[in-house]
């Protein structure tokens, strides 16, 4: 008798669970928010800027002023770290900054790669600006920058950009006196 009672009780519980109406979660509002977020992100994210971002190990210098990048043409980045220099859109390792200064072979190979890029730009559009974007750690001595700029100039780049972090607040610090 007891068993039959418990069985009945179980079946009644299961039955009540089955009978309970399945309420669907209303995700329409969530979808609305996500759509807005998606549109915002797509608007802000461009694939070009991802290529131009240095890695986390680089301590970026900062600046107050900012110039606009030329709208036409391609920008070739070069990243100068304390231990290596990376060149091109695919960030090919060139060697150490010291090797770039002292080793003629490395410098000539870099010059050849730069010349190849500028010639390609000229071939695609002879009037397009040939831009190089220098991204370097804030503590890098200027001799490396100077050498990179001189090689880039010989290779035919006519627009040199320095990449920095925009800190408009620094102006008040500079002009506080």
């Amino acid at each position, binding site marked *: 008798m007891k068993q039959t009672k418990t069985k009945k009780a179980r079946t009644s519980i299961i039955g009540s669970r089955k009978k309970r109406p399945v309420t669907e979660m209303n995700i329409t509002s969530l979808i609305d928010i996500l759509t807005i977020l998606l549109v915002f992100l797509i608007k802000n994210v461009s694939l070009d800027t991802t290529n131009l971002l240095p890695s986390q190990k680089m301590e970026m210098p900062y600046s107050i*002023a900012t110039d606009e990048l030329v709208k036409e043409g391609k920008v070739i980045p070069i990243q100068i770290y304390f231990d290596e220099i990376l060149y091109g859109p695919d960030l090919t390792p060139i060697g150490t900054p010291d090797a770039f200064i002292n080793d003629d072979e490395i410098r000539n190979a870099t010059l050849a790669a730069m010349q190849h890029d500028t010639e390609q730009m000229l071939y695609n559009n002879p009037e397009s600006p040939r831009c190089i974007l220098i991204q370097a750690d*804030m503590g890098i001595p200027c001799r490396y*920058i100077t050498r990179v700029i001189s090689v880039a100039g010989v290779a035919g780049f006519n627009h040199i*950009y320095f*990449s920095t*972090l925009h800190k408009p607040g620094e102006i008040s610090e500079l002009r506080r006196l």
Partner: protein
Amino acid sequence: MRRISESRTAKLSKMTKPINLVPIMNLFLVVIPFLLMIMVTAQMALLEIQLASSGGGDGAGNEGEEEIKEISVAIFDDRLEVKLSNQDKADVLPVIAEGIEDIMQRYDFTELDRMFQNFDEEFPVSDSLKQITGLDLHEALVRIIPSEIVKYQALLLVIDICKMNNFPNIRYSSATTKLLKRN
């Protein structure tokens, strides 16, 4: 009659059937974290400079005493030197405190900024003169000459001060190039 009513109810049930939003949600859950991951949080800025020209262009101060064609800013480890093309002597801004790693505290950028702000007052160019000669102080070339051991941040701060004070024509010269030209 019965058949028609059945088809109507079937149509109605089809019309009221909710759209399956689960695939869209799945898509969003993949795309949004990816976009957030590649999103640039820091605001990047760019500073443009010109390359030092290979030939000529250095003839300074020939057309008049007040004319400033070029402002040279040399950055050394222990000082900043500012020289106008119509002056023989450079203004020297020694470092505020030696041995400090922070570039902002090390060099006297405040004074450099003040100098650039005062250039207009010190060397006024009248409208009539500007019309005749086409000369504008802010069109003057600012030549920046960093020494080899100076840190990159110092160079950028000097360029920054020039740009902030509306001197957009900035040319990069290395100390060695300048020395070679003098010789």
